[in-house]
């Protein structure tokens, strides 16, 4: 089922959107869902030309997959990126299983440690005493010299000798964290961002100017932190945002499939577009509710997989000077 998002802009938009009671919400005492198809009370049809004074709320309804009864959906403003301060276009529901998960710091730590280590290769290498040049002969006789007994000048005891248990060659620290733990890590990171007011949902990443200073001022006015991570649905971004982000240190741009716990925690503010929010929520909920047994990662790479030039036939054929007749 497709969650509906209806964005209507009629004249001047209503700045302070008020959610009102809906009869189905028994547990929602503190606030109400933004499922507001009953906005008829507020809206007034502007048949007259006086559009400046009439206030029309933007109706945004968002139905959640895998709804949950033990807690309520969280709310977030939907902002626009067309001006410095921006306008509030509506309010969106956020799934509590993605944006209201208990903040488990140990799971976050596991995820970040995995991200750091699974790609790490240590290239340090120390030769052993057998590999060092020299050191085959006994330097002096065992007895009678008045010196300590030694068998080789490259033993670890000697200067310029070998390291007994030094780093040995390129070492890899690859391992895979279970899919469920990684999904949980993402959900916890998003929950932490939402809880600490560092999450902003934006209509799209179309900004009016490609000047990096405009973007910096926008972030300043909206109290977005020193570092901002912009996440869009696809990897094709508008020109203006690409140039602005490139010109500002601390601003990063990512498609939704590139999101990860390390980047979420590195950047102070996370700015998602609605499409990206939809996609991320759907994927994370699918992962959470999938009943497939997780397959263990098995490395099936072979040297042939890295072949770049086509395989030539190197069999040695015998050349005959005359045709064969039998």
């Amino acid at each position, binding site marked *: 089922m497709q969650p509906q998002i209806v964005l209507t802009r009629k004249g001047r938009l209503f700045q302070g959107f008020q959610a009102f009671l809906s009869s189905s919400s028994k547990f929602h005492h503190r606030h109400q869902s933004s499922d507001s198809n009953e906005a008829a009370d507020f809206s007034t049809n502007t048949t007259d030309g006086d559009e400046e004074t009439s206030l029309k709320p933007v109706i945004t309804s968002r139905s959640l997959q895998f709804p949950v009864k033990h807690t309520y959906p969280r709310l977030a403003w939907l902002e626009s990126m067309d001006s410095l301060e921006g306008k509030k276009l509506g309010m969106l529901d956020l799934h509590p299983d993605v944006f209201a998960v208990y903040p488990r710091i140990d799971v976050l730590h596991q995820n970040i440690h995995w991200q750091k280590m*699974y790609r790490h*290769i240590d290239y340090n290498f120390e030769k052993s005493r057998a590999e060092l040049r020299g050191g085959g002969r006994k330097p002096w006789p065992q007895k009678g010299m008045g010196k300590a007994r030694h068998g080789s000048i490259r033993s670890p005891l000697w200067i310029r000798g070998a390291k007994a248990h030094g780093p040995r060659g390129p070492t890899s620290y690859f391992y895979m964290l279970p899919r469920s733990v*990684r999904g949980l890590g*993402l959900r916890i990171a998003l929950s932490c961002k939402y809880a600490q007011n560092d999450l902003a949902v934006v209509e799209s990443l179309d900004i009016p100017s490609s000047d990096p200073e405009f973007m910096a001022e926008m972030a300043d006015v909206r109290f977005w932190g020193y570092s901002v991570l912009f996440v869009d649905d696809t990897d094709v971004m508008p020109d203006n945002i690409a140039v602005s982000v490139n010109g500002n240190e601390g601003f990063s741009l*990512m498609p939704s499939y590139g999101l990860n*716990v390390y980047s979420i925690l*590195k950047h102070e503010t996370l700015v998602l577009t609605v499409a990206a929010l939809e996609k991320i929520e759907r994927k994370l909920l699918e992962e959470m509710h999938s009943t497939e047994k997780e397959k263990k990662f098995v490395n099936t790479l072979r040297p042939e997989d890295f072949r770049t030039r086509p395989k030539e036939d190197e069999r040695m054929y015998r050349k005959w000077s005359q045709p064969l007749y039998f």
Partner: protein
Amino acid sequence: MGNTSVLRSLLIVYMCRHLGWDGDTCKQDRRTEAEALLIKNNGVKCLGSPACYSTKSHDENVDLVTYKKDVRPEGGDRTFDAYTPSPFRMPGPKRYGYAIKYKTDGLLPRDGKPVRSLPPYSPENKWDSKHALFGQNDYIDILGDGDIHPADLLTGPRWLIAFKGNERERLMRKMEWEGPRLKLMYPSEYNRMQKRIRYLTKLYNHKRKSRWAD
């Protein structure tokens, strides 16, 4: 002026000429104005105060007191060269004493060699594109279409990508992947790997007890 004052003035003149008094710098309280004029007119140096010390040695008259020299000799072979020679010392070499052989002052000699020092500290920029986007696409199997696994995106030595093992396993895998090429092009490295595999096999299987000891 009486007889005593005349004698005194004569004495002053004698002292000025032979022992070097300088009327301007002398700080004798009892001297009269006439005496000061005498000293000044004679234009000789005064030995009464430390400011009048000079390195000129008066060979005719040997000083009975040793004075510290203004300018210390640069050679510095003997510590006692900073003082005027004492008449009570016996000349000749000595079998005691200590000669400082190192420089105690002045600029260090470089002899054209550059000064070796640590390279200037330049901290890494934690917000360049490599650091700012670290970890991107690590969750692509969850957040993407599901056809790419993050291990497919790893870079490094081909036999080490998405593989973890102890030294022996890594060497054996490298031998599988690179063995024929190494045997042809790098025979020393091939030999080293062969010997190391053999040694580690014996070590792990016959000498080590713990499974995780590497």
